C-alpha cells in the first residue's frame, strides 16, 4: 500500500513532464485540433448558462437574470405528469423502431448496390433512392395519409388480395402509429442513410475480394466476410451515436400525423413540449428547457454506456 503510493508519487511528476514534452512534440496536431476545441467551447458550451432557466419561473419581462427561482418545481411538474411519462415511452419506442429499421435498411441497400456491376445502373438507383430526402415532411405525410386512409391504395390492395374483409383503420388506431412512422421514415431516408455506408465500402481493399474469389467464396460469403466487416467500424460508430439519440424521435412527422384517436401513442417528448411549453399564449420556456436538459443528460449517459459496452466487446468505439 505505502510502497504503491510512494511509487505513484515518484512517477507522477515525471509523467507530467513527459505529458508536456509529448504535447510540445505534437504541436502540429494541436494546430489541427485546438481551434475547433475553442470553437465548440464558445458556440456549444458557453450558452449552457441558459440551463438555469430550468430552475426558474421564466418571464420574458424579467429575463433570465431577473426571473424568480423555483428550485426543482419544473422537473417535478414534468415527472409528475402522466402525459410526459407516456411521451418518454413513445419516444423510446419510435426511436428504437427507427434505429433498427433505418440501420438495417440502409446497410441492406448499400450491400445490394455494392453487388451491382453496371456503374450507370448503380449510380441511377443510388440517386433515385435518395430523392425523397428532399421532400418536405408535410408532402410525405400527406401522401402517406392518402395511401393509408380507408379508401387508400394500401387498403384497396389488402381488400383486393383478400387479406382483410374490412378496410384497416391505419391512421386511427394507436397500435399502428409507431410502425407507420417507422415505415415512412425508412422510405424517406433509406437512400440518404445508405450514402455513408457506400462511402465506407470504397475503402475496402479490392484485393480482399480477389482473394476471397480465389478461395472459392460464393457471393454471400464474400458479402459476409469482406463487405460487412469492411463497414463494421462505420456501423458501430453510427450505432453508438444513435443510441445516444434514443430520446430524439423527431417532432414534425408525429405532430403532422397525430389526431385525437392516436394521441396516447403519437406524442413524443418534443410534441409534448410543443403543446405544453410553447403552445399557449404565455410560453412556459422552463418546461422546455427542463425537458431539453433531461434529454441531454440521458443522451450522454446512453452514449457513454454504449461506448463502454463496445469497448468491452472489443469493437470500434466512438471515444
Amino acid at each position, binding site marked *: 500500500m505505502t510502497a504503491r503510493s510512494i511509487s505513484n508519487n515518484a512517477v507522477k511528476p515525471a509523467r507530467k513532464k513527459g505529458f508536456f514534452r509529448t504535447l510540445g512534440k505534437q504541436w502540429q496536431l494541436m494546430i489541427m485540433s485546438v481551434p*475547433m*476545441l475553442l470553437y465548440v467551447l464558445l458556440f456549444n458550451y458557453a450558452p*449552457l448558462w441558459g440551463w438555469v432557466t430550468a430552475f426558474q419561473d421564466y418571464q420574458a419581462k424579467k429575463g433570465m437574470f431577473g426571473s424568480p427561482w423555483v428550485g426543482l418545481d419544473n422537473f417535478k411538474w414534468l415527472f409528475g405528469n402522466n402525459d410526459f411519462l407516456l411521451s418518454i415511452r413513445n419516444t423510446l419506442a419510435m426511436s428504437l423502431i427507427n434505429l433498427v429499421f433505418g440501420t438495417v435498411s440502409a446497410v441492406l441497400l448499400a450491400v*445490394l448496390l455494392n453487388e451491382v456491376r453496371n456503374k450507370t445502373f448503380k449510380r441511377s438507383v443510388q440517386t433515385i433512392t435518395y430523392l425523397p430526402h428532399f421532400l418536405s415532411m408535410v408532402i410525405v405525410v400527406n401522401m402517406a395519409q392518402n395511401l393509408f386512409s380507408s379508401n387508400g391504395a394500401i387498403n384497396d390492395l389488402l381488400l383486393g388480395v383478400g387479406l382483410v374483409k374490412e378496410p384497416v383503420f391505419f391512421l386511427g388506431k394507436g397500435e399502428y402509429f409507431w410502425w407507420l412512422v417507422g415505415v415512412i421514415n425508412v422510405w424517406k431516408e433509406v*437512400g440518404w442513410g445508405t450514402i455513408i455506408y457506400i462511402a465506407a465500402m*470504397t475503402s475496402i*481493399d479490392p484485393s480482399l475480394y480477389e482473394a476471397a474469389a480465389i478461395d472459392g467464396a460464393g457471393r454471400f460469403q464474400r458479402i459476409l466476410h469482406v463487405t460487412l466487416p469492411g463497414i463494421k467500424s462505420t456501423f458501430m460508430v453510427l450505432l453508438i451515436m444513435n443510441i445516444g439519440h434514443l430520446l430524439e424521435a423527431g417532432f414534425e412527422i408525429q405532430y403532422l400525423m397525430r389526431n385525437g384517436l392516436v394521441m396516447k401513442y403519437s406524442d413524443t417528448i418534443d410534441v409534448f413540449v410543443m403543446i405544453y411549453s410553447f403552445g399557449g399564449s404565455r410560453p412556459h420556456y422552463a418546461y422546455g428547457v427542463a425537458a431539453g436538459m433531461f434529454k441531454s443528460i440521458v443522451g450522454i449517459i446512453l452514449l457513454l454506456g454504449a461506448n463502454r459496452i463496445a469497448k468491452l466487446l472489443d469493437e470500434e468505439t466512438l471515444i
Partner: protein
Amino acid sequence: MTTAAIKNTGIKKRRDIVFPIVNTCILILLCFTTLYPVLNTVAYSFNDGLDAVKGGIGLWPRVWSTESYASLMRDPAIYKAFWISFSKTILTTFLNLFWTGMLAYALSRREYVLRRFITLVLVFTMYINAGLIPNYLLISKTLGLKNTYWVYIIPTMFSCFNMIVIRTYIAGLPDALVESARIDGAGDLRSYFQIILPLCLPVMATVALFVAVGAWNSWFDTYLYNGSKKDLYSMQYLLKMKLATTQNQASNAANATADALAAAQKSKTTPVTVRAAITVVSAVPILIVYPFLQRYFVTGMALGSVKG
C-alpha cells in the same frame, strides 16, 4: 457431353444469374416507390392551383400551368437570394471540410495525448442543447453577427458528426501509410495534406454533400438573425415565406371578415402547388451538383494502386 455435365454447368450459371436478376428487380421496385412521390410532387408543381385543391393528381398534371413557378420567379429578390444561398453554401462547405478534416486526422492519431479529452468534449456537443434563447443572445449580442452575412458562415463551421465519419474512415486506412511518411520526416500537417487527404476523397465528398445540403436548405439562420435585412435573405427563407404567405391568405380572414376571404378566393396559386414548386426549385441545384460528388463515393478509388 453427358446430360449430367450440362445440368451441372447450368446450375452454376443459374446461380450467378439469379442473384443479379433478383437484385436488379428489388432495386427497380425500390426506385419506383421512391420515384413516385417525387414525380407526383413535380406533377403538382405544374398543375393549376385551384384544380390541385381537389387532389388526386398522379404522375402527370391534370390542368397544366406554370403559374406556381412564375409566381416564385416574378419577384426579383429571388435572384439575389439565390446568390446569397449559393455563396454561403460554397463557403460553409469549404471551411467545414478544412477544419473538420484536419480535426478528424488529429483525433485519429492514437499517440495524440489530447485525443481522448478533445473527442469527449466534441462528442458531447451532439447531445447538449442550451436552448434557443442563449444561442440567440450569444450570436446576436455577444458576437454581434445579427444582420450580417457572416452569421451564415461562422456558426456553421463545424459538425461533430461529420468529424466522426471522417475519423472512422481515416482509422480504416492502413497505418503503414502514415508511418512511412513519418519515416520520410514529414510532420503531421504534411502527412495529412499530402497523403491522407487525397485518400479521403470518398468520405470528403460524402461530408461535402451533407454540409452543402444542410447549408443550402437552411432558412432558420436567416429567420433568426437576418429577417429584417432584405438584402441578406437566403433563397430557402424567401421560398418558405412565399409558401407561408400563400397559406396565410385563407386564415388571415379570421380577422378581416370579407376582405381577405375575397382575396383568398381569386388567387391563382394555392399552397399545395406552391409547396410542390418550392420543393422542386430547391432540389434542382443539388441534383445538378450531385453527380460530381457521387463519382467519388459510389465508384470509389483503387486503394491497391496507392499502396503499390
